């Protein structure tokens, strides 16, 4: 087997995997901390992508800048969504199920609002470096992949630092590990939940933009992106930020290797099959449900 092909596949695969991880880390966090399966997480990612597309095509704003701008904007929007839609769900006996049904409905609404505004036409995010590469020896590091990879590293590590080092972040982790105890310590669970939710959704914007640098997108794309999210959560473990990042790497490696060695027809099947086997043997993800 040709080593250049293998390594090149690995390089682009890993970078692609990390982009999935960036979109998935917020999804994983929401699920782990709040027991909310946020089906509309990917649609918020799409929202970020359309935002970046509009700014790029109308004003020439680079997607990376849009990613940074969209993050606080989405944070605010998500806070509102939390207060209006998510908070009432805490009354449910099974919040996981109720949140899934509600956010499913929200995803449909947002998808069709996107159609009304931007039409169903597929779009591409094409900054000047869209199809350029940084060439090192025989290897091509495609700029969109690199940018996505960089955004992912920044995004995920920021989230990690927030959770581990800041007081709010530690409160989030505490609430997640033991809700009763956290309440006893005076932690306002609603406020913590809102911040967690908003934080998770705000990373979705950057994640969506990174994905849009790699692939074309249209309002319906969130359905496909949702599959990537579930993949990342399986391997990384629900709620596990570092695990999600590593999951991205692993999925990238699996995709890259299988594309280098197997007929492409079998790649998706092998990927899902392996993940299935993997889950059977390590049901809590590679790294378990740690903070």
């Amino acid at each position: 087997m040709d080593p250049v092909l293998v390594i090149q596949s690995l390089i682009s695969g890993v970078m692609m995997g990390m982009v999935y991880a960036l979109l998935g880390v917020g999804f994983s966090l929401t699920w782990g901390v709040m027991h909310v399966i946020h089906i509309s997480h990917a649609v918020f990612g799409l929202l970020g992508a359309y935002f970046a597309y509009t700014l790029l095509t109308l004003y020439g704003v680079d997607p990376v800048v849009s990613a940074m701008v969209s993050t606080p904007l989405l944070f605010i929007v998500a806070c509102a969504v939390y207060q209006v839609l998510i908070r009432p769900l805490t009354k449910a006996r099974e919040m996981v199920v109720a949140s899934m049904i509600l956010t499913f409905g929200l995803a449909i609404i947002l998808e069709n609002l996107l159609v009304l505004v931007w039409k169903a036409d597929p779009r591409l995010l094409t900054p000047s470096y869209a199809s350029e590469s940084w060439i090192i020896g025989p290897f091509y590091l495609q700029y969109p992949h690199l940018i996505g990879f960089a955004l992912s590293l920044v995004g995920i590590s920021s989230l990690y630092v927030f959770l581990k080092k800041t007081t709010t972040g530690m409160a989030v982790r505490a609430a997640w590990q033991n809700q009763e105890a956290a309440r006893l310590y005076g932690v306002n669970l609603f406020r913590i939940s809102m911040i967690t939710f908003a934080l998770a959704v705000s990373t979705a914007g950057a994640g969506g933009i990174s994905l849009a640098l790699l692939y074309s997108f249209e309002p319906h794309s969130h359905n496909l992106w949702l599959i990537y999210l579930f993949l990342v959560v399986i391997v990384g473990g629900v709620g596990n930020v570092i695990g999600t990042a590593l999951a991205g790497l692993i999925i990238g490696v699996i995709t890259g290797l299988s594309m280098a060695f197997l007929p492409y027809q079998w790649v998706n099947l092998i990927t899902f099959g392996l993940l299935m086997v993997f889950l059977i043997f390590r049901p809590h993800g590679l790294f378990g449900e740690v903070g």
Partner: protein
Amino acid sequence: MGKKKSKHAFLLFFLIGVCLTAGLPASVLGAAKPIVIGGSLPLTGQYAETGQWIERGMRYWAEEVNAKGGLLGRPVEFKIYDDQSEVSKAVTFAEKAITVDKVDLLFGGYPGTAARAVMAVAEKHKYVYVSMGGHMKSFQQGYTYSFGAPPLMGEWWYEGFFQWLATLPANQRPKRAAVYTINNPVGLSLMDSINRWTKKLGIQVVINEKYNAPLADATPLIVKAKQLNCDLLFSNGFFPDGVTTIKAAKALNYNPKAIVQGIGSVIPAWVKELGRDGDYVFSGTSLYNKLNYPGNDKLNAYVKKKYGLDGYPLYFGFGYAWMQTLEQGVRGANSLNQTKIRDWLKTHKVHTIAGPMTFDKNGLPPPINFCTQIIDGKVELIWPKNIRTREPVYPKPAWK
């Protein structure tokens, strides 16, 4: 008190006015009962973009027909259901249109898998169904009421490209082909002509792989094609995977002599979003908007004015052409009797924006062999030679 009364009066007059205006078109055409054409399109979901273009083409046809006095002296109107890009819904809505709404005629749907299923429904209820069809296999099921007018026939899609390629001296033709095909009915039907022609032209198919959607990474595909010195690339897929492949080809500086695209490059977004990166790809088509067939000028002008596009998109043309065929069948048979329409269509020639067509017993016209190439952001016709709009650019210039 006075304010409320005048408000009510205004509302009353407004409503009367609305009713009068709404009733006007019917009264202009002698208040004749409209001819209803029914069915479903994917107006939301995965295939919404194409579904909407088909609808626009259909409605433009209806406007024209009604402006000229209607069909059989009656106005035409549509009953379009949204099948949400789901095959089973396309089937139930087809049945609803036929048995509940009791529509007079059916219109064709999208994509090929839905068309395959609806062709069955149309056959069961003996309704003429003019659509893109579902590639060759769907026309080999013994259905008599289906017509592809024109069809989107994967088996014919690359005929024109290969016929053109055959005119090149052997030493200029590509020698080694990399064929990447999406694993679904469209992709599989595209492979048919590749298998036949590469043998004829002495082109070695070095790579022949299928992939399942989604195509997550086209990098390995391109690297392989490069390493094996493939100078002809077939990207037999839709827009998302086609785009991923082209972007990778540019990023990895892969410069084959020609790149052939499946059905991804036929939608307006290809040129709009890829810009110059989308240039020089070859593809097929079932109709071409710059040909001299009657109606093309009008449609182009309309699309330019309304959507700012340089020439009507393929699916707009499809919607219009299928309706033209149906219209001529109805006029020819002078009846809304489905069997009479079917028999007339099978024994007469129709003239549409896609050119003249006659239909064989399976409802297919003779094989279409258009080949297109995108040059300077425009879709040019390069085959058949006598209607060529521009000389093909070959070999493909290197990426800048």
